[in-house]
């Protein structure tokens, strides 16, 4: 499988183009490319520090958020009902090639 391309808008509004490798979750792709994604809990859907926004068209194609994920997101800074995801809960998929991801504000 080849890498996905990924565009990231950071908290200052700057844009970064990254490679998203097939063995990475979205959180890992962000963190391992040195974006300021804290991922305190290491990807166990328990800290919400990997919160990102997706475009609605992309968001709508994804499977439902788990109860654990939603529980954290609804309390997270800037929560968007049709856009917020924990990036650690998004596995690599070729359908996500070329998407744009915006880092959510930090608490």
């Amino acid at each position, binding site marked *: 499988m080849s890498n996905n391309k990924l565009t990231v808008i950071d908290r200052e509004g700057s844009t970064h183009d990254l490679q998203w490798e097939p063995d990475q979750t979205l959180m890992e792709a962000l*963190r*391992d490319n*040195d974006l*300021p994604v*804290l*991922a*305190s*809990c*290491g990807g*166990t859907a*328990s*800290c*919400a*520090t990997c919160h990102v926004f997706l475009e609605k068209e992309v968001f709508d194609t994804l499977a439902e958020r788990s*109860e*654990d994920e*939603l*529980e*954290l997101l*609804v*309390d997270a800074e800037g929560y968007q009902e049709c856009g917020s995801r924990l990036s650690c809960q998004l596995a690599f998929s070729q359908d996500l090639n070329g998407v744009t991801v915006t880092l959510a504000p*930090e*608490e």
Partner: protein
Amino acid sequence: MSAATTELTPVDESLSGPAALPPYSHELAWPDGMAPFKVVDDGTQGDPYAHYAWMRDNAPVLRAASPVSDVWFISRYDDVRKAMRAPKVFSSQVVDPVPLTFLTLFDAPNHTRLRQVVAQAFTPKAIARFEDRVRENAHKYLDPMIAAGGGDAVDDYAIPLSMSTISALLDVPASDFEKMKFWSDETFSYFGRLARNAQGTGTDEQSTFEFFAYLKDTMERLYREESESVGGHIARMWKEGLLSEKEAKELCAFVFVAGHDTTTILLANAFRVFSEQPELLDRIRQNPADANLFVEELARFRGTVQRASRITTEDVEVAGVRIPAGAIVRLLPAAANRDSAKYPDGETFNIDRNTDGHLGFGHGVHSCLGAPLARLETVVTVELLAAKLGSLTLNNDKPIEYVRGNNLTNSGPEHLYVELEKFNA
């Protein structure tokens, strides 16, 4: 919204007036021969798992008296997990103002800012760079022990390995080792006094200041040398004005202390489990990849951190018991990890079980920062023990001595004497 099932139950004031407090631990009918669970261990809780089992069944929210305040212990898996996911209700800022720059003592937003400083150095990618070094050191400490037919798994192996690894991470010379170990123990005691009302050693304040002075000199050097280590990174943040001198020194100290005792005990526990299930030596020798299963199950079954301190910011009901706002709470991840409601037959070590969701490295925003490093050290150790040993037994003449005293956080062996026999193919 479907989140309701996992939410904490807020207390409905209108129905319940001031709720009755549950009895104290020392007022409960503990089984014969089991001393009531205490806030400060007096030697009856060195291996606390029998207490935990009784608590999960009979007092899942246990109130214990201490000279300073009541302390509430929470032991069931679902309850501990929920609390760790709710930092706004179960706050980590148990001392206000926070006396030392230790991550475990902060809530967001300060927690987030400070954790960001060190987080990059601890990602799995960053830690992988240390693998060769850890492996080399592990051989270095294990081989003489095997040649001698055994020794103390703590003093001869676990301490040297964890100290040399954390020293490498901070980039302090291995020759300063003894000094660092002493300081780190003393700093632990000083912190316990400030943050947890522990007793202290009498010399801990003086030693802590010496430690900080040493760390300042070290950071000056790392800055000059443009060191790529965690220490170097913290030094640059300080020189660039992102951290104060106080914060920078204390963060270094914290990383050091946090990584030393915890890992030492986990490594010693790996020896212990091999002595209890010797067939695992063969299995892992033949399938080294199973070392990963061993280590996750070890963190579940004999994890190091027994308690996580929190303070409630509002009244909250847990397992049918109402805990008042401002209560000092100790979450017991090590008790939760053996809850058979989550892990069937939870009191048994079984490397083939599904360990997903265990709390051995915490859960939530305060999850262990050092977990990738601790896992690396322990996996390497488990692989090497299996590769090199035909047998590992406890020394019958010298029983396990448990950590106790000031250090209630981490439970496990202070000395663990083993007899080792080389594997002959």
